[in-house]
């Protein structure tokens, strides 16, 4: 017993917090790279996360294609859609106030959510866990489901992998350079427009991957990303969008914090991240890892 809270409950909520943190990290990472290069806050991120989960569900129900291929196919499909969105819609907003990008992607999110709500209702559909990851480990103090460990592991690897690519490879250094000064980079003969398309596709692909990972845990429903994206916005404000590693760390830490709040003061578990955001803004307006105010 710690502070009159059973150890089991504590570790259980910590685990749930880590799972939520995995999703916050994957989503805010995608938002951060998209914002860095496109100067667009992608409001459609939550809807594309939902779309990723639905692609996995369709693959299983309509084509009998299981979880493992879906893990690759869904991000690919959503990434292609993202590339199309960037080419046909977002590109037209280059040079305009970033608020227009937010409003355009908000519109896209409404369209996606509206269409799926219309065909599937708001209750959501079950998605079966892959057999290889069912069951769990019985630790002395808690039961550890395999699938949850898998989600945390994959998310960590993808997040750190993305960070390593942007920091340590030629592609990553070009990406960072274009984020700093796109006209100069294109003067060096690098195809910046193509890089922008690829970056947007990559960012929303990460969201779709998070959607597939979430499908067996949460139900697959049209609104699964709607409230989530607002929490992720708060995470991004807390971390500051300037830093990729910052958004990963902030995502995990806030997930854990949310889990702990569920144990000690459950009434506030929905709002704790927003409260943290308000405090961070008052104390350190640029965000924990942000550069400029």
């Amino acid at each position, binding site marked *: 017993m710690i502070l009159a809270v059973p150890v089991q409950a504590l570790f259980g909520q910590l685990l749930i917090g880590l799972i939520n943190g995995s999703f916050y990290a994957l989503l805010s990472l995608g938002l951060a790279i998209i914002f860095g290069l496109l100067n667009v806050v992608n409001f459609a991120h939550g809807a594309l996360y939902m779309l990723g989960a639905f692609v996995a569900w369709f693959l299983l129900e309509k084509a009998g294609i299981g979880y493992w291929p879906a893990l690759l196919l869904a991000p690919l499909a959503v990434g292609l859609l993202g590339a199309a969105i960037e080419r046909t819609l977002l590109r037209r907003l280059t040079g305009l106030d970033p608020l*227009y990008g937010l409003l355009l992607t908000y519109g896209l999110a409404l369209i996606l959510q509206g269409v799926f709500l219309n065909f599937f209702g708001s209750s959501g559909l079950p998605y079966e866990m892959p057999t290889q990851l069912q069951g769990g480990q019985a630790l002395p103090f808690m039961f550890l489901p395999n699938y949850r460990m898998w989600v945390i592991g994959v998310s960590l690897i993808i997040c750190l992998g993305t960070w390593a690519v942007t920091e340590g490879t030629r592609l990553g250094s070009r990406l960072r350079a274009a984020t700093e000064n796109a006209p100069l980079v294109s003067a060096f003969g690098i195809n910046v427009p193509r890089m922008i398309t690829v970056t947007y596709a990559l960012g929303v692909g990460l969201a779709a991957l998070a959607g597939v990972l979430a499908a067996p845990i949460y139900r697959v429903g049209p609104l699964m990303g709607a409230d989530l994206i*607002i929490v992720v916005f708060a995470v991004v404000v807390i971390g500051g969008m300037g830093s990729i590693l910052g958004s990963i760390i902030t995502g995990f830490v806030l997930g854990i914090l949310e889990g702990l709040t569920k144990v000690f003061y459950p009434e506030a578990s929905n709002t704790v991240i927003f409260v943290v955001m308000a405090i961070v803004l008052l104390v350190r307006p640029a965000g924990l890892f942000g550069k400029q105010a």
Partner: protein
Amino acid sequence: MSEASVQRIETAAVSQRVPIAVLVVLVLAAPWVVYPVFAMKALCFALFACAFNLLLGYVGLLSFGHALFFGGASYASAHAALVWGWPPELAVLFSMVVGAALGLLVGLIAIRRQGIYFAMITLALAQMFYFYCLRAEFTGGENGIQAVPRGHLENRYAMYYFVAGVFLAGFLIIYRIIHSPFGQVLKAIRENEPRAISLGYKADRYKVLAFVLSASLAALAGGTKAIVFQLASLTDVHWGMSGEVILMTLIGGMGTIFGPVAGAVFFTTIENYLSQAGSWVLVAEGAIFVVSVLAFRRGMFGELSRLLKRPL
């Protein structure tokens, strides 16, 4: 909002007497032409959109959380009228005070960041308030506050002209604010904040005051709506409502005086026609957003004032 991106026709010294007179006549005649309930809903949304536009159009701040003030005020006025038995005028006035207090609180936090972050912060704070309303005792959770009494305004025409009075008062207040020296400073901050600061204006104070004014007037609209529909519910504090007021302002023409009114009427009309269509309303809203942002950024009154070569 950066100055290069938004083309506006400045609303400087041109007299707006004629268009305002037209608006007043339309508002007074409306219940004899369309259903009074429809007209009241349109007027509440119109005032909400005008209040929102005061911030977006004239200070360049996009609040994605104005449902907080609209919905928070509708709870306040419903509670005052139902539980405390206050007459509708006092209930609405009380909701405005609540809106101003909420506006001060949110404004002080949100203006610490600019541009796109401001939108995300207001959205997040409004979502926090939504969760609070979901759990709080006095809001009635999923049921909301129902059967709010209209007091001595039972007659639907009495109710309508009360709403019309509220709308016109709010509209004229906003008109005055925009054309006052204070409003000029707001526009200066919108166009070039560092320069306004170097001229000695405390930009943050101006922004907070504009935020509080906008929140109070949005609250006036929300408080009135609760009396009209005799209901305060979670719909009014949901982020969807914040999105809808942006949509109304965008299609009407942000930074124009009459645009938000037109946008609100347009929005109420399509919502009315699509009320049987379920989630397709969302799809329609989304499509309007996409089309407006891509091809219709000036909005109805922005385009109109460009054609007529005079601010509207």
